[in-house]
């Protein structure tokens, strides 16, 4: 407990500085609302239900897009490493689109799918799939040939080798690719909601800012940032459990 306190003390220091600066009137309240105002605005949004309804719609979009990205990305990546023809067809496409700044897809998704959920889910799916694909491919490609040969010579079918040898040995790299995808999905979610949406955290940040309710805007911004951080930490804990067999 006290170790955590020493470790995170600089963050408390920053918060105290924030509060002090606003209390002393060093910066205008319109530029930086005081921390207690932000907290009470957060409470207002939470009690009024706005934060929950928008939060649920954001998180549903993010989870749906990311889930699709993980399923299809790992499938394609492993198949690329396992079947040469898949590699020949898919690899050039992946290599070409991987470096594309994914946010460029936002207007195209709006054009195709409108302002609602579908455009965000597909955006996150397409954007987050490439890192997953590439990491699954690299992980599966790095499987020790000796392990594959041994399993084959002991009579395992090709499918069984794929499932029991290739997939587990691709897992560490795949899981780190999914971490990248998780971070990217938050970025794409918030960016697309800021630009065009009718619900969600990004949409809330936009209309609160436009309406000059800066304390509430700060409250939502900090909420999103905190959720992104928590999601990453929970994911790391999950990874540690999944990979516990490696030690």
């Amino acid at each position, binding site marked *: 407990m006290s170790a955590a306190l020493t*470790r*995170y*003390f*600089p*963050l408390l*220091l*920053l918060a105290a500085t924030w509060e002090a600066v606003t209390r002393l009137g060093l910066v205008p309240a319109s*530029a930086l609302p005081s921390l207690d105002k932000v907290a009470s605005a957060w409470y207002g949004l939470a009690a009024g239900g706005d934060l929950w309804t928008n939060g649920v719609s954001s998180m549903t979009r993010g989870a749906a897009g990311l889930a699709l990205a993980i399923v299809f990305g790992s499938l394609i990546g492993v198949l690329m490493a396992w079947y040469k023809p898949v590699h*020949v*067809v*898919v*690899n*050039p*496409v992946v290599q*070409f*689109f*991987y*470096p*594309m*700044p*994914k*946010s*460029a*897809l*936002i*207007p*195209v998704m*709006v*054009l*195709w799918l409108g302002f609602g959920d579908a455009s965000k889910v597909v955006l996150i799916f397409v954007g987050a799939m490439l890192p997953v694909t*590439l990491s699954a491919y*690299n992980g599966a490609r790095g499987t020790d040939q000796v392990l594959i040969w041994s399993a084959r010579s002991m009579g395992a079918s090709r499918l069984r080798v794929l499932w029991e040898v290739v997939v587990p040995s691709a897992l560490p790299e795949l899981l780190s690719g999914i971490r990248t995808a998780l*971070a990217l999905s*938050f*970025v794409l*979610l*918030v*960016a697309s909601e*800021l*630009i065009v949406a009718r619900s969600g*955290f*990004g949409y809330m*940040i*936009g209309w609160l*800012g436009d309406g000059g309710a*800066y304390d509430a*805007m*700060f409250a*939502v*911004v900090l909420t*999103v*940032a*905190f959720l*992104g*951080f928590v*999601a*990453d*930490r929970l994911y790391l804990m999950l990874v540690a459990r999944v990979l516990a067999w490696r030690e």
Partner: protein
Amino acid sequence: MSADTPILAPAAPALRLDRLAAGLTQRAAGTLPLIVLVVAWEGLARAHILSTFLLPPLSTVLERIWDDALSGDLALNLGVTLYRALAGFAIAAIAGVALGIVMARNAAVRWFFDPIVSVAFPMPKIAFLPIFMLWLGLYDVSKISMVVFNAIFPVITATLAAAEGVDSYLLWSARSLGASARQLLREIILPAAMPQVLTGLQVALPIAMIVEIVTEMLMGGTGLGGAMIQASRFADSAGVFAGIIEIAVAGLALVKGISMVRRHLLVWHQEAEDPTTV
């Protein structure tokens, strides 16, 4: 040994036609799926399987890019976007490497920044964009600052890990040979940390581009992202697709560029090839 014994001289590269042909075939096989994609796009649009609004023919889109190039819009938007993305990236690179190294060398600095970096790194910092707009306005300063804010954390983390991982024997040997602190930094720490730092930069550059495009889309004005969102507001789908091709090519060029820089800087290093990402 006389000067004309060519023991260590590289053998003149023999022209291996078979290898050349094999390389070309592989190249061709590599671009084939992309060509199929391009043909399918044009075909789908021409056959009106999808409306030209949803998918304008590639030829129309290329014509639009050509028109933009002739009118100078393309050069202007591309220039502005690259300027802001690269300026932000450069600031993030220099400040991030400096901070990472100081954190590795100084316990107090490390204590202060460690929790901030570890909390801020995984945060979706793009959510802070409206706050940057509020504080810094709608022009270059706020866009470049946003790019720096997003791109700096992978650089700090990579540099810190790299500077920590420098072989202690190297440091001890250099110090016992009388190296000053500055020499230690220039001759030992920076070169030893270079591969990992470059990997951090290779993560940061695409982030800089993603963020730059989003800031332009939200704030409008010049730039590839701004032009694209403008086109989408006017339901100008050829403009939207022209934008996505321009941005994709710019992104590809930057990623290829930084991996060339990596190869150039690390010729002395034994790393066989680029990291498998990108």
